[in-house]
């Protein structure tokens, strides 16, 4: 039985990770062939660093993902904290369901409705460029928000209410007690909300497709536009680099949180 469960786990991991391994392998291929490896080389990595379009798109994607996830983390955390202070259940639940709508809504509906709104407002304000970085950012914050609230809320609910109360008894202002007592307690939820928002924003295609203007092309949009001709292997190289970065970041964050938890145990 134990062997069987091990085989099962191994199988799941293989199915999950084989596409990524294949992608990494072919990013080192010396020709543009997928199907047979003709030799290992760093050719596509050199290509990647010499193609300005891909790099520009990567830069755009990162700027957008960082700003969208920071803003949505700030707003989302504030919203989650505020929601828990609501006295009336009816209000709390209705506000919660309203914030969840962008999450349940199909992307295409969110995208088209946002585009219509932005174009309508742009015409109303008489702007030449109705869509651009700002509209894209608003759209991304909108769909990231519910995920942040969803990951912060349980942390607040499980935190003992007596902690901030004790802090305020001992002379903290409400703001001080939030930053010194509550925030450190809910920080894991805030961080996971931030990471979730970041990844969602990073690979969103549908909503970006409708809400971007003429001067801001993100990576998913660029890759999609290559599909009439060929998606070139320098994209594989780029994906490999992104996966490696994410893996390193995850390992670092795990190591640091482990150190912290042992530290805390020692001080206690």
């Amino acid at each position, binding site marked *: 039985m134990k062997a069987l469960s091990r085989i099962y786990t191994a199988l799941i991991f293989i199915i999950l990770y084989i596409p990524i391994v294949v992608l990494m392998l072919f990013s080192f291929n010396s020709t543009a062939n997928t199907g047979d490896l003709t030799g290992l080389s760093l050719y596509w990595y050199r290509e990647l660093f010499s193609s300005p379009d891909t790099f520009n798109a990567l830069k755009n994607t990162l700027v957008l993902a960082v700003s969208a996830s920071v803003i949505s983390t700030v707003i989302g955390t504030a919203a989650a904290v505020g929601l828990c202070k609501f006295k009336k259940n009816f209000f709390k639940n209705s506000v919660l369901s309203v914030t969840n709508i962008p999450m349940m809504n199909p992307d295409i509906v969110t995208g088209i409705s946002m585009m219509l709104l932005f174009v309508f407002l742009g015409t109303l304000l008489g702007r030449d460029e109705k869509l651009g970085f700002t509209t894209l950012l608003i759209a991304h914050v909108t769909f990231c928000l519910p995920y942040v609230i969803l990951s912060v809320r349980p942390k607040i609910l499980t935190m003992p209410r007596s902690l901030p109360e004790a802090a305020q008894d001992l002379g903290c202002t409400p703001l001080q007690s939030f930053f010194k007592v509550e925030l450190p307690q809910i920080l894991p939820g805030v961080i996971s909300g931030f990471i979730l928002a970041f990844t969602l924003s990073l690979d969103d295609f549908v909503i970006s497709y409708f809400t971007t203007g003429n001067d801001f092309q993100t990576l998913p949009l660029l890759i999609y*536009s290559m599909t009439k001709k060929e998606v070139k292997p320098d994209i594989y190289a780029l994906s490999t680099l992104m996966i490696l970065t994410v893996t390193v970041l995850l390992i670092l964050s795990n190591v640091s949180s482990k150190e912290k938890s042992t530290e805390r145990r020692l001080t206690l």
Partner: protein
Amino acid sequence: MKKVLLLWVVSVFLAVSLSGCGGQSEKLTLNVYNWGEYISDGSEDSLDVNEEFENYCRDELGMEVSVNYTTYASNEDMYNKLKSGSATYDVVIPSEYMIEKMIAEDMLSPLDFSNIPNYQYIDDNFKNLFFDPDNTYSVPYTYGMVGIIYNSEMVAEEDLGSWDLLWNETYKGQILQFNNPRDAFGTAIYWAKDSVNSTDPAVWQSAVEKLKAQKPLIQSYVMDEIFNKMKNGSAAIAPYYAGDYLTMYDSNDLLGFYYPEEGTNVFVDAMCVPACAKNQELAELYINFMLEKEIAIANAEYIGYASPHTLVREDEDYIAYMQDWHDDAMEILYAQDSAVKTEYYESLDTDTLSLQNSLWETLKIENAVEPWIYMTAGTIVGALILFFLYSYFVKRYRNHY
């Protein structure tokens, strides 16, 4: 902690506002919207055309220009973006039927050809075409024809020559077909020697019957996956563009190519200025720059499609470069001069277009959903409903006591 948070918020807002007005300072911006992978962009030791244009403006004309270059995957994507009024562009490069449609809807702006002297180099065959009969709106960029690509190891020589190869039972499971209605219907209609611009519903009906008959033989309906499938030999036959055949041949020299004897599709992609453009003169300067011999050659070599530019076609370096790809590259790309019968796609009227789309749906949906899928889905939904009802009643029963 508070200060750090505040710093974050302030820096983000600063970044947003800065990026908002960064483009407004003296520098002129030219917004170009083109197909993906459709310009020489500096990769693989090619010339970076957009950078060259910026340099040209700075060094020769003393203007600071930045080219804002974005890309799309299909004519329809580009059309919708422009039509929604959400973004403005100065140069777009649609295909002929889309140009015809955009002219009819007043979406393009007439060009001032005194700003485009290099237009004289365009081959006369590509002037005064049906989509722009008086040559007021468009300047041809590339053209090409659809042919059939086959793997010479897997396909017998006596089967070649006609569209019927795509319906040949011997190659069941090894044939690829276009995954868009216009091109897929095109293969069937060209085979029947009818007109692809026909408004007669009977033509479209008989075409869809042919495509339905072909469906069991098809490995899959594809667009860009064609490159990999043909290169590594997992499919034997596919209709696609001549220029892309050369790219595939570059990695697999077993691939062969021919134009079907019944006639085939020819397309022209041309540079146009949309009516919403903010900088028409600069756009015309860019179009003229794209027709400079050196630039046009760089683009033709990078894209691999045929160029309507007469100087390119006669250039010896270009010919040598193309023949390095494939011995008959020039004959294949520029076959329109010889005996291949061709027909352009014209903009279809709304009735024909909706007929085509609905027939395409029936083709794609047919047999795709098998009855057992419905049955399984139905059973699962039914079981879920029963389970919820059951747990609901159990709860009520328990609460009762």
